[in-house]
């Protein structure tokens, strides 16, 4: 059992590192895009709200695998060739941003109306009220859902490695080790340990964020 790990340690470590970078980069994209889309969803304009809603419904209901085909093979055929890393990070980021936007939106609704009205009556513009008053509080209430979204993202990152992009992530490395050693259960077991390592770290991280920043209402 242990020898599969020790003899292929470099493969597993590099796979874990690839998965980690993939998740981190996509998470940042998802956070930025998700915030913008959530802002659209609560904007004081029907058209903008609808735009945000369409974005969320499309990317939340589309399988990630299909998104990967569109962004990699599809765009390549259309003459817009992007590398597997860019396609993988962009797809995972965009896919997750729809979930981030939805949870942020419910966080915005959890901030009491009075906060927004107070901001507006102090002479802040809509955007300033959102940026300085509503969103900081909304982010605090959505720390726990953001944690589960991040864990879902770690799991979804395996789809990127298993798809046609073939990024050498943890799952891909486990499959390579398996085809070299023919020890299927052992190779997959150590990859599973790697994934657990990531999800446990994220859980602990978000718990500590939660206890530091959670708002009591």
């Amino acid at each position: 059992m242990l020898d599969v790990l020790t003899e292929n340690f470099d493969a597993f470590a590099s796979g874990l590192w690839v998965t980690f970078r993939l998740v981190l980069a996509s998470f940042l994209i998802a956070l930025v895009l998700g915030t913008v889309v959530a802002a659209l969803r609560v904007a004081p304009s029907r058209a903008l709200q609808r735009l945000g809603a369409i974005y969320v419904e499309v990317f939340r209901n589309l399988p990630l695998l299909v998104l990967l085909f569109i962004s990699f093979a599809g765009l390549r055929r259309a003459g817009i060739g992007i590398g597997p890393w860019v396609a993988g990070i962009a797809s995972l980021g965009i896919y997750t941003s729809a979930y981030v936007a939805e949870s942020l939106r419910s966080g915005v609704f959890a901030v009491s109306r009075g906060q927004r009205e107070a901001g507006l009556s102090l002479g802040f513009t809509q955007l300033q009220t959102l940026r300085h008053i509503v969103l900081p509080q909304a982010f605090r209430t959505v720390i726990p859902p953001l944690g589960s979204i991040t864990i879902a993202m770690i799991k979804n990152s395996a789809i990127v490695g298993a798809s046609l992009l073939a990024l050498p992530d943890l799952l891909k490395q486990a499959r390579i080790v398996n085809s070299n050693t023919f020890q299927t259960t052992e190779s997959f077991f150590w990859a599973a340990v790697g994934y657990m390592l990531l999800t446990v770290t994220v859980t602990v991280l978000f718990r500590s964020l939660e206890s530091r920043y959670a708002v009591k209402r």
Partner: protein
Amino acid sequence: MNYLFSPDNWQWLWTDNNAGFLLEAFLINIEIAIVSMVLALIVALALALLSLSRATPVRLVAKGWVDVFRNLPLIFLILYLALSLPEWLREGWADNAPAFLPDALRGELVLAGIIGLVLYNSAVMAEIMRAGILSLDRGQREAASALGMTYRDQMRFVILPQGLRRMVPATVSQLITLNKDTTLVSIITIQEVVRTGRGLTQTAGNPFVGGGDIQAPILQVMIFVGLLFVVTNYALSRLSRRLEVRESRRAAGEGRVAVTGVEDLAVPATGGPSRS
């Protein structure tokens, strides 16, 4: 944009019944989703009951099982099963699968896909069920026990009927995720919609994959496939939202005034885990 909407690039869709071919393949995805969800719900109920058991070792094992399979990537489980399912099982299925099933569901690796989907989704659903049961007022169980009901009767007549009703909306939204996840079995070569779509782009004039004379461009094919999912899942998400509203109204009691147009604001009755 020109490339995207140019009629030349969409011509494949209405030649040689390609559209019908993709729709038929999409039906396979729906079938896989429904079969997996039904099986997952059965397993999940058992897991949820075990994880609420009063015997500590049973509870710990059930919780550990749920935590492991909930936290592993689904594609990881599917690929592992595809590599490690015993041969007698794979071949046994391929030889004995009922004839009414479509060809795509009678292959050797179908079981790996379905077992993977069931393992993962049963763990997720078990957690939702457990939350639904725990969200019930303590008094319900206390009242049942004061009436002299046994543990089994309390569960069967008091706790489960209420707890399970609360998780109906969450089940529907999990069905959306499951529906999307059925595309993953294309990776283990099951001929569902993504794989069929790829086939259309690779083989012009191959009668076995239904390809016509026109080689379909992959961007347009995948956009069409994506649309099928977006439309189906959007309908499911409307349904789930409607059920949530109904549930929270029920929870709030009859006295609450029904305000139309604020469906989006309704908070699900179970503060359960996220949908993803």
